[in-house]
């Protein structure tokens, strides 16, 4: 009896244990199999956090590695209005730190919302001051902000990056795909307190930064160009101006200055239209600087020699019922003197000797009417009409630099071809692309576009252009100790009301290269719309060329190529 009672108890206990175990198993199967998906997702939401991370935008440096644009993480401030006890008090405390008006802060903090931006992308120092306040209901997140440490320097070439870090203009826009940091989604594990423990997969890498761009620009040359241009534009009370400095042998842009400048760090204060890089976008009638190209074409084609005598018609000639004037009454002169004295009549006769078709062919060969393909956005084409659309005066007009529109970069590239023994190079501003670790990804090699004229013709034109500076219209472009070749230009602008050439609005320019026998610099200086009606390329732009050229040659340690007389060298003693 006792045995049967004991056995019964054992069975009962076994049954209870089996039932308990069965329940546990049932629960286990329910959790691990039947509800596995839903519970796993719920657990994931609790202890995993997916964040979208973006590597910082790449840095832009000059040819010597000086930083021109870089990203930095800076504080952005937000408020949680629903948790604030006294929005007015918090707003007062914040107003001493944030660049936001008190009433604006208070208005934002009184909103019935759980999140509101108060100020974005502040200076790091402002963030530190805010930290010291340690206000409840106010939070800080770090965001990438683009800094241009040199301020307005090179602003038109660099362009700008927007609030969300996207390139909007200039190099920032053109090289967006290289500069933009890598975007990556990352899953992080969180503990019970919400702290990040480590990434879900330890193999996950942080997003990679954008690539670093090295420009051909030299910060010092750029500074010299901008300083001298700004001074000249201001002194002449001109509307605007531009300077482009090229290495004629490679086409590398050493400086590209545009006035008026702007500060890319203060975009909100920017006036409309200031972002435009007029050195590559805007076409202008070049005036007499075009005569250098006409001379090159005429000599190359054998239509003229430097010694060929040309009659100046005593400063007045009628072509297609229009009278062409020279600035002085010129009689017989050599073809070299036609260029050096900048005779319109001589240039018109040269153009006519060359003929329409050949003239048009050389305009194209020098790169007019087509983009130079410089690696900057928004480049203009200029305006070169097809010969079929030319009038009876067109050959003469184009030979004097009228009826044609060129951009400053086209004109300086064409002069650089003269300096480079007749070979036209493609201008460029980015020389190297490196990854975030500094490994070289791409090095831009100088690119030959085409041979335009023979080396002999180029040397012949150079000698003529040297005469422009030694005893022609461009004497103020002279640089002591160096042989300078160049050409002045003073072009009237079309009056949009009368559709005729204005007598008060004109563009003055000087384009040239130095040293003439082994050119290191090709440069264009344009002063647009000076106040003085008597101003000319020789009086306004040529001195700027001289001033920039002398400082840059000294900076580049270029030796003088001829003796310097004491009188020239020491004007102040």
């Amino acid at each position, binding site marked *: 009896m006792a045995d049967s009672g004991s056995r019964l108890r054992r069975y009962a206990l076994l049954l209870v244990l089996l039932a308990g175990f069965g329940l546990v198993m049932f629960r286990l199967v329910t959790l691990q199999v039947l509800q596995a998906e839903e519970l796993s997702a719920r657990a994931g939401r609790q202890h995993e956090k997916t964040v979208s991370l973006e590597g910082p935008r790449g840095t832009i440096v000059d040819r010597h590695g*000086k*930083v*021109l644009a*870089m*990203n*930095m*993480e800076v504080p952005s401030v937000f408020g949680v209005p629903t948790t604030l006890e006294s929005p007015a008090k918090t707003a007062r405390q914040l107003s001493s730190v944030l660049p936001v008006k008190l009433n604006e802060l208070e208005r934002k903090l009184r909103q019935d919302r759980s999140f509101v931006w108060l100020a974005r992308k502040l200076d*790091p120092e402002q963030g530190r001051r805010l930290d010291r306040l340690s206000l409840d209901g106010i939070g800080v997140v*770090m965001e990438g902000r683009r*800094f241009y*440490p*040199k*301020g307005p*320097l090179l602003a038109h070439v660099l362009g700008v990056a927007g609030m969300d870090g996207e390139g909007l203009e200039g190099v920032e826009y053109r090289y967006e795909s290289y500069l933009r940091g890598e975007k990556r989604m990352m899953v992080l*594990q969180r*503990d019970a307190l919400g*702290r*990040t*423990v*480590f990434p879900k997969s330890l193999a996950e890498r942080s997003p990679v930064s954008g690539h670093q761009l090295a420009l051909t620009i030299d*910060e*010092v040359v750029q*500074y010299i160009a901008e*300083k001298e241009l700004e001074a000249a534009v201001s002194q002449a009370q001109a509307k605007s101006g531009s300077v482009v400095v090229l290495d004629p042998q490679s086409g590398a842009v050493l400086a590209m200055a545009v006035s008026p400048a702007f500060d890319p760090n203060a975009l909100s204060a920017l006036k409309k239209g200031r972002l435009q890089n007029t050195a590559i976008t805007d076409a202008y009638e070049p005036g007499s600087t075009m005569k250098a190209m006409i001379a090159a074409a005429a000599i190359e084609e054998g239509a003229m020699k430097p010694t060929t005598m040309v009659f100046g018609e005593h400063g007045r000639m009628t072509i297609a019922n229009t009278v062409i004037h020279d600035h002085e009454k010129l009689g017989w002169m050599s073809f070299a003197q036609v260029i050096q004295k900048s005779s319109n009549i001589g240039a018109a006769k040269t153009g006519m000797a060359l003929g329409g078709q050949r003239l048009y062919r050389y305009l194209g060969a020098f790169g007019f009417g087509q983009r130079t393909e410089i690696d900057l956005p928004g480049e203009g084409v200029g305006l070169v009409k097809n010969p079929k659309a030319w009038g009876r005066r067109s050959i003469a007009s184009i030979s004097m630099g009228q009826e044609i529109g060129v951009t400053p970069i086209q004109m300086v590239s064409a002069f650089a071809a003269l300096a480079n023994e007749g070979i036209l190079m493609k201008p460029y501003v980015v020389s190297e692309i490196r990854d975030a670790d500094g490994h070289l990804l791409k090095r831009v090699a100088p690119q030959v576009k085409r041979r335009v004229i023979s080396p002999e013709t180029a040397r012949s034109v150079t000698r003529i252009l040297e005469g422009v500076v030694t005893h022609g219209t461009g004497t103020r472009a002279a*640089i*002591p*100790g160096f042989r300078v070749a160049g050409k002045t230009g003073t072009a009237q602008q079309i009056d949009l009301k009368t559709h005729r050439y204005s007598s008060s609005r004109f563009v003055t320019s000087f384009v040239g290269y130095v040293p003439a026998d082994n050119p290191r610099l090709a440069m264009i200086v344009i002063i647009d719309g000076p106040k003085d009606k008597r101003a000319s390329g020789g009086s306004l732009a040529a001195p700027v060329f*001289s*001033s920039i050229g*002398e*400082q840059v*040659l*000294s900076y580049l*340690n*270029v*030796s*003088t190529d001829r003796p*310097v007389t004491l009188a*020239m*060298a*020491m*004007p*102040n003693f």
Partner: protein
Amino acid sequence: MKIFTVLLGVCLVFVFVWERVDMVRVGYQIERLKRDKTVLERQRDELRVKFSSLSASNRIAKLATEKLGMSLPQQGQVIMVQSRPSVTPSADVAPAGVRVARNYLPSRSD
């Protein structure tokens, strides 16, 4: 033998638990170091921006002219000449350009 197996099992459990705990500890350590790295990188970037803006040519020129009373050389005052060594140069020494400030030429009377 049974005791040994049980002990081994217990040891394995301890090793497993210890490994998990240590992983979490190292995880916290990595995160702390990452935060430190981020802070240091921010400081580095801030200093780089500061250095770049302080070394801008226009700022240096302004300080030199306004604070130190310096002035830019006038046209023709600085001349680049080829150096002419007094003794026969060795084959591996190329002639170098020399900058001469006109004001300080040795031939000047002052």
